[in-house]
């Protein structure tokens, strides 16, 4: 364990919820950041301040509050653009969630570029949010879906993946960081797509706050993530798409704000990014996400990665030593997420038991039912870390896990 890699624990003071007592007794140990992260004070306070001092609708009025709201909203877009190093603000679309982002791309990409019999490549370890939108295309339009296999380390089998491509392959959509294994997608998957000139969407839900994201360097065509998993507010997501594609694809939802001229006979659409933002957007939430990005930048993405990688390694090794624990996935190339099962104890029992000790972990299928089937389990227990987690918390967790095992094997 390299202690120099850990973040200063003062960071914990930035997160008010961390001083909560669970069941009026135990300090909260929050190991469920992959489901949703906690929010720093700055995000909470800026949300407050927006409503107290600057709020109105965006883009529509010419009065002062409208200016203040619009500038906050558009400023957030600039922050997101820089955060993922997109070429242009036009490539940043605010959605309500990553799920909406994937639905948007699946539908509009199909409308512009695909037809019956065309193929999509996914993997066996995709989240339901990166499965069902494509299933819809299969059910409605006869699109074919192929699934890349994965190996025992929780990585895509890149040979198998490459073998799936045909002339009909029109788009690939893969998780950038598995929400079950914590494994990072290898750049070679993207390289294969680029070589074959097939656009690739990265589901960045789990990577956006835990890896350095540079969409130009990654050379991905689309990238989605959710604000609520990146220390930002609920109700806001981001869809990045290269401008060439987004400007050719049709709009997704229709309504105020996304139009040019409207008559009874038809409508022209606004330019990017407004074209994809029908209706009043989650403007305060977008601002909050911008503040969360500032917060992460202030700490330093590299430092965040170092902290979480070291902590993950530490926890993995501790767990791996326990003979009553079954680990999923390999040790390497893993960031912030660990899935495991207690032998003979259902993950629900583990989570309820730990909950009473103040420890929040997640138990279930993690919205990855096909992967669960592949692993031969019906659920797993999952630890996931954020910048606020510590070695001490991991130690307490391991201790509690021993108690848990005793209890259920008594």
């Amino acid at each position, binding site marked *: 364990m390299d202690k120099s890699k850990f973040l200063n624990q003062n960071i914990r003071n930035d997160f008010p919820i961390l001083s909560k007592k669970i069941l009026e007794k135990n300090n909260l140990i929050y190991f469920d950041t992959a489901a949703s992260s906690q929010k720093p004070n700055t995000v909470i306070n800026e949300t407050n301040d927006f409503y107290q001092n600057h709020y109105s609708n965006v883009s529509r009025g010419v009065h002062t509050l409208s200016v203040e709201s619009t500038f906050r909203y558009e400023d957030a877009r600039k922050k997101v653009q820089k955060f993922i190093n997109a070429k242009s603000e036009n490539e940043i679309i605010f959605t309500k969630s990553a799920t909406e982002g994937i639905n948007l791309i699946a539908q509009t990409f199909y409308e512009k570029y695909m037809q019956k019999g065309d193929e999509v490549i996914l993997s066996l370890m995709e989240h339901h949010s990166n499965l069902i939108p494509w299933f819809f295309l299969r059910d409605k339009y006869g699109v074919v879906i192929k699934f890349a296999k994965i190996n025992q380390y929780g990585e895509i089998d890149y040979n198998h993946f490459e073998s799936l491509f045909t002339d009909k392959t029109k788009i690939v959509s893969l998780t950038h960081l598995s929400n079950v294994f914590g494994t990072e997608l290898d750049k070679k998957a993207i390289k294969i797509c680029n070589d074959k000139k097939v656009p690739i969407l990265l589901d960045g839900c789990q990577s956006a706050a835990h890896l350095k994201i540079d969409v130009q360097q990654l050379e991905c065509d689309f990238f989605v993530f959710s604000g609520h998993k990146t220390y930002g507010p609920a109700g806001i997501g981001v869809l990045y798409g290269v401008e060439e594609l987004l400007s050719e694809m049709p709009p997704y939802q229709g309504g105020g704000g996304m139009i040019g001229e409207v008559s009874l006979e038809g409508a022209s659409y606004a330019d990017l990014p407004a074209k994809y933002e029908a209706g009043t957007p989650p403007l305060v939430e977008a601002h909050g996400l911008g503040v969360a990005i500032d917060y992460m930048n202030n700490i330093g993405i590299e430092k965040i990665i170092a902290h979480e990688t070291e902590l993950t390694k530490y926890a993995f090794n501790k767990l791996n030593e326990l003979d009553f624990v079954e680990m999923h996935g390999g040790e390497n190339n893993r960031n912030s997420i660990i899935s495991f099962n207690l032998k003979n104890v*259902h*993950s629900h029992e583990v989570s*309820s038991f730990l909950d009473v000790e103040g420890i929040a972990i997640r138990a279930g299928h993690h919205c990855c039912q096909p992967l669960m089937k592949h692993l031969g389990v*019906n659920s797993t227990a999952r630890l996931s870390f954020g910048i606020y987690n510590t070695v001490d918390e991991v130690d307490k967790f391991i201790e509690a896990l021993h108690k848990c095992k005793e209890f259920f094997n008594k």
Partner: protein
Amino acid sequence: MNDLINELYQEIILDHGREPRNFGECDPHNKSADGHNPLCGDNLKLTFLLNKDDIIEDIKFTGEGCAISLASASLMTEKLKGKKIDIAEEIFNDFTNLVSGTSEDLKVLSEEDSLYALKGVGGFPMRVKCATMAWHAFKSALKS
């Protein structure tokens, strides 16, 4: 050990969770339904034989799930076997009230019933669906 945990995992629950009774499929049966908890992937298949007097002659289940869902299914089959439908429905109502924490006016269940051991689920609201999965399957099988 914490009280909440001890209340949730009473001995009888752990026992039925480890070794569920009436595990299998009724042969013959004339009623069946699948139960499923989309939050966690737990699932079961319930089968039973309802005779012409509306009595549940035999009832069994298979499936996978947590201790709470297995124990609840197991205890349910024990309780419902031999019961008439109208009484079974009253038990259903009592049970769902019991585990969702509104256990004041139970009609047919009493503290002596083994099912009463599942009362502790009330302290873990997200687990209520585990405890009621088999019961909702029973209810929907009745309609089948």
